[in-house]
């Protein structure tokens, strides 16, 4: 018991010294970067924004909501209590931001959203930046409509319930509809998970051995699906398209296992969002505007000029002098 008490005191003392040193840092402009999870997409986004913030003389603090809307709201409240000058947030869901916006606007702290757009919330926010979910997946369906003459197509979706996976499926089908000889025969959730996507691809190919095309809603799952098809000797037969442009997705394209991806690099998007938020804080940019996030269709022809998730410092520095995205006027209706 005595040993435990001494241990506890040592921990407490160490904590005081460490945190005292943290607080001793000079106070500069502070931005809270609240991300939905610690997954690679958000990690690369926050890392690029951190590098950019450092170059812009801004202090950035990273929070994670662990896909929990209540934790997200707690993070917003804590960031405000800490006294940050602005909040950059990847919202947990497409609908839980109202409480966050209300809290931030009541405290007079500008909050800029990456994803989760809702027109009612736009006037109270510093801005929104995201992709058009349906429009993002549509070119992938169009590519299949043009490159496959006829046959069966399947979709491996992300986790249902946030609205994004559903919208991607809808957009893909709209593009695919340009070729009436193609039929969607299966829609299975891979829950954004590589292992689950592996199992989903195995099950789909068992049910439809003559499958011609596969749309996988992110490249983490695409790796699992491609592995499953390769193991079953179907990789040559099935054309795969995916989304996001992650480093492992680009590797799949390089290896010829993935035909096309639509990239929405979190790195350049977060840097642009940070610059827009700083503009609002400094009074140089009008708040309450909507922006499209940068996207890029990538195949084997333009692999080398793709915006990388794992961008190097010199790339991020170059992005600081790129023109900022223009606001979309009027903003989308939903």
């Amino acid at each position, binding site marked *: 018991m005595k040993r*435990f008490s001494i241990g506890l005191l040592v921990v*407490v003392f160490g904590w005081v010294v460490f945190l005292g040193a943290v607080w001793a840092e000079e106070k500069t402009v502070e931005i809270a970067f609240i991300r939905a999870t610690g997954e690679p997409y958000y990690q690369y986004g926050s890392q690029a924004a951190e590098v950019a913030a450092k170059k812009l003389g801004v202090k950035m603090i*990273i929070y994670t909501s662990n896909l929990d809307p209540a934790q997200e709201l707690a993070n917003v409240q804590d960031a405000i209590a800490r006294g940050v000058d602005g909040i950059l947030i990847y919202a947990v869901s497409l*609908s839980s931001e109202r409480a966050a916006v209300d809290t931030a606007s009541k405290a007079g702290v500008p909050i800029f959203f990456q994803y989760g757009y809702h027109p009612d919330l736009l006037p109270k926010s510093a801005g929104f930046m995201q992709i058009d979910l349906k429009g993002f997946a549509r070119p992938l369906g169009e590519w299949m409509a043009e490159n496959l003459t006829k046959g069966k197509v399947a979709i491996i979706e992300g986790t249902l319930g946030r609205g994004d996976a559903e919208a991607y499926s809808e957009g893909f089908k709209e593009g695919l509809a340009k070729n009436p000889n193609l039929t969607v025969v299966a829609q299975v959730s891979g829950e954004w998970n590589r292992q689950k996507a592996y199992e989903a691809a195995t099950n789909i190919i068992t049910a439809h051995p003559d499958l011609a095309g596969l749309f996988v809603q992110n490249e983490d799952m695409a790796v699992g699906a491609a592995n499953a098809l390769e193991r079953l000797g179907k990789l040559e037969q099935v054309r795969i398209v995916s989304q996001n442009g992650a480093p492992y997705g680009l590797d799949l394209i390089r290896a010829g296992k993935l035909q096309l991806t639509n990239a929405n690099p979190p790195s350049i998007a977060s840097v642009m969002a940070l610059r827009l938020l700083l503009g609002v804080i400094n009074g140089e940019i009008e708040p309450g505007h909507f922006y499209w996030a940068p996207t890029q269709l990538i195949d084997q022809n333009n692999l080398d000029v793709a915006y990388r998730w794992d961008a190097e410092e010199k790339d991020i520095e170059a992005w600081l002098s790129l023109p900022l995205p223009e606001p979309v006027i009027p903003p989308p209706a939903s």
Partner: protein
Amino acid sequence: MKIELRGRNVLLLVLVAIVLISGVVNPRFLSVQNFLNILLQISVLGMVSLGATVLLVSGNLDLSVGSLISLSAYVAGMGLLRGVSLPLAIFLCLSVATLFGFFNGFLTSLERAHPFIITLGMMTFLQGIAVVISRGSPINGMGGLYELIGIRSILRIPFPVILFGVLFMFTSFFLRHLPLGRYAYAIGGNQEASRLSGIRVGRVKIALYAINGLFVGIAALVLSGILDSALPTMGTGYELRSIAAVVIGGTPLFGGRGGVWGTLLGVFLLGLVSNSLNLMGISANFQNVVLGAIMVMAVMFQGSR
């Protein structure tokens, strides 16, 4: 007077230390607004943890509470979306939660399997129903529920905090003074002896699970009111965090002792650590390391008593 440094005293000491350190590092931590933030942040977890305490003292647990939060909140949201009155939507939410709590209790009382397995299956089942009825889509806007619970305060104290306080007092009274509460401790201490002494163990379990379900329903209403939305996955994670809070607070997993005051400290610890780390600007990647280490230390200490 000699004060022993053990159990709840150590937990209190850790809490005081966190408050002092956080206050020194960032004076904003000690603001009234921040304490109200913390109280609001822990209110939902606190309600779920009170239900978990009632079950854990009787040697039972419920892993389906997270899914039940999602389902019952979604049912209320669907009702409001289709134009039912607010009282009816609240009634629907509480009924669904209590009913499934009752059902959990019934299955557990059959004693064909451990509650861990039964409620684990129920967790998947309820999550599945939530996704099926929602078709995967969230509900935006809870209308009057947001006005009633989400933004209302009384003397600056957010309504969910007051509700948590009322539930806390009720649970404390229930466990200490009502026969059902005392039976819970008896069953947790020795189920067979309780049965031999005339306690109808099966019925008591059903009642305890139903009470737990009711608490979960209230938590679901509060969470969807605060967030002004209902999502088919919104309760994910509450099952483990609530059990962690109860165990940190000194109620053992096998039951027989413990209580709501320890649970309150456990819930405070989880909320306080998270809040103080955020206010100190500790990196998100490092936060889970600290939080996990504190949880393990707290539970290890409780286990060594």
